[in-house]
């Protein structure tokens, strides 16, 4: 029987996030949590759970509803030696804090000529699928992938949720950590001991000879389902989980496209100027260009705010069937 530390258990994505938080707090007293209702309530999605009871109100700090203020609080704590991990209840609310995150956190080190570091993590759930409508369902990660000075990750599995979060907390730079509401309850194998998944590395989730699909967050799950469906038709799709949107793991993407000559990018954010635009452009300007034998396809969110009605909501972002259909066409001809 493995001991507790080496054990691999099935736990949920939310539990994996919590475990990373708890291990980081145990290992480093500079780490603390900050956010609305992360204390007794345990977080709007229950992610912080019992951490308040385990670490006390000084390290799991419930804040008033003041997104700009608490983002600045994280910045100030980070530049003076602490390691704040901030939670926004929904990633949509980061809009109130853009100033602190983009004008301050992302730029302070550069503006100060390297004389300060801003080691902070902003955790927040994005994505649609819960009927929360236009102001609680966005996928805004592409904005931040446009900002030098930030790092941006989107874990798709419980394993990565834990490993990327521990790496993000270690990182001396501001890291935006996009969780997905629909993934919180999904389960996966997660080692009990702390481990890191390096920021900036994509991972091939499924090896295949046909068009690779680069997917992010919950679209990894849906793409893998689509790939399974297509496997029955003899189509063997390669699936890459991007994981990190800034920096982007270009070599892994380029290599895969060179092998297959095609590319589909699947993501939930609005298609226009979503992460797929960047992936497509990276390939189109890379040495993989000459290997392309079909247009690069993107399947992102539709060009609309997220609707409340569940039928419309589903129609607004890629579903497994959409991915299957587009892949079938891509492999067939282009």
């Amino acid at each position: 029987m493995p001991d507790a530390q080496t054990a691999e258990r099935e736990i949920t994505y939310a539990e994996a996030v919590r475990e990373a938080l708890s291990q980081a707090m145990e290992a480093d007293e500079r780490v603390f949590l900050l956010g609305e209702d992360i204390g007794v309530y345990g977080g709007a999605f229950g992610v912080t759970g019992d951490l308040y009871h385990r670490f006390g109100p000084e390290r799991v700090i419930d804040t008033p509803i003041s997104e700009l203020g608490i983002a600045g609080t994280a910045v100030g704590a980070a530049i003076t030696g602490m390691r704040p991990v901030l939670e926004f209840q929904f990633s949509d609310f980061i809009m109130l804090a853009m100033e602190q995150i983009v004008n301050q956190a992302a730029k302070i080190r550069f503006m100060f000529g390297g004389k300060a570091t801003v080691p902070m993590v902003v955790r927040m759930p994005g994505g649609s699928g819960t009927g929360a409508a236009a102001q609680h369902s966005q996928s805004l990660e592409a904005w931040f992938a446009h900002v030098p000075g930030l790092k941006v990750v989107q874990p798709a599995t419980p394993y990565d949720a834990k490993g990327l979060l521990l790496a993000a907390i270690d990182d001396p730079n501001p890291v935006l950590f996009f969780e997905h509401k629909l993934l919180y309850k999904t389960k996966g194998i997660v080692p009990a001991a702390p481990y890191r998944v390096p920021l900036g590395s994509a991972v091939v989730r499924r090896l295949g000879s046909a068009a690779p699909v680069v997917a992010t967050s919950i679209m990894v799950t849906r793409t893998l389902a689509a790939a399974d469906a297509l496997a029955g038709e003899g189509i063997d799709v390669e699936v890459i989980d991007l994981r990190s949107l800034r920096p982007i793991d270009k070599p892994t993407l380029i290599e895969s496209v060179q092998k297959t000559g095609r590319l589909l990018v699947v993501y939930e954010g609005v298609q226009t100027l979503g992460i797929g635009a960047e992936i497509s452009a990276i390939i189109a300007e890379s040495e993989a260009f000459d290997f392309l034998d079909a247009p690069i396809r993107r399947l992102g969110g539709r060009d609309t705010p997220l609707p409340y009605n569940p039928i419309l909501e589903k129609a607004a972002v890629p579903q497994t069937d959409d991915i299957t259909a587009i892949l079938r066409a891509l492999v067939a001809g282009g």
Partner: protein
Amino acid sequence: MPKNSASEPRQNQRPALALLSDEDLRLCLRKMYLIRKFEEAAEASYVRGLIHGTMHLSIGQEASGVGAVTPLRPTDYILSTHRGHGHCIAKGADPKLMFAEFFGKDTGYCRGRGGSMHIADVAGGNLGANGIVGGGLPIAVGVGLSSKMRRSGDVCVVFFGDGAANEGAFHEALNLASIWRLPIVFVCENNQYGMSMPVARAMAVPNVADRAAAYGMPGVIVDGNDLLAVFEAAHEATERARRGEGPTLLECKTYRLRGHSKSDRNLYRTKEEIEEWRRRDPIVRFREELTSLGCLTPDASNAIEAEAAREIDAAVEFARNSPQPDPAQLEQNVYA
């Protein structure tokens, strides 16, 4: 709506009664019942799987919504919050179209695109619930400014919670409204908590209204579970706004009897506290007051309640039987 009441003695007891006819009072009771029944039916529909997403119920807060909106004219505006069903009904919305929205149907106020957190009845002067805490506050400034520029004489009532009073938006909006003397009534429904955060931990002053002084505007505190008290203060603030004398911050002390939303396990408050407030139920209280003032017989109240229940039942039926939106129209109305 307000008109002089003939009954001398009762308005001595409650000055608000000088402005409200029996008919008005019955309408207030009716609206409070409609709200309560609406939300109870929403809960029931949720349990039965007819509604998805989340919802924020204002059960226990009916007096502040109805009381604050009653002084308004039909062309006046309101801006509402995530906990906005009450405001919407108070402003005269049709529960059928609200429920249809809640059910995500094409017949809903927002054609199923908005849902509970975004119900708007633009034609009726409700410029929308809002999913962003404090999101309506800066918008209210624009509504008030527009009203002033167009010389329409319309007033804007903007609702927000105690939690919202700690957002920067609150500060900027109250300051702008004050320096420009806009016709706005800022109605804070202080229900003691912003989600799990008690007011006393979220701010270092006892009342949200204490902050009015920072903007040079009147700050008024009322018992938010007392419809007549809310009405009276709101009436004064509305009249002041209409006279061009600027905004008022009106704080209604109240309580939400339900959890914050569907995910709430009530870990941050006690059963006793909830019980204590249940005894101050604003509907029961208003109804008893009307009875004791002789404005209403118990039978008449029962009839009002029953009629509200029927209207809500019919609304649910209407919603259930309404068509789903057509996915082919998904990208409609992204642009005008």
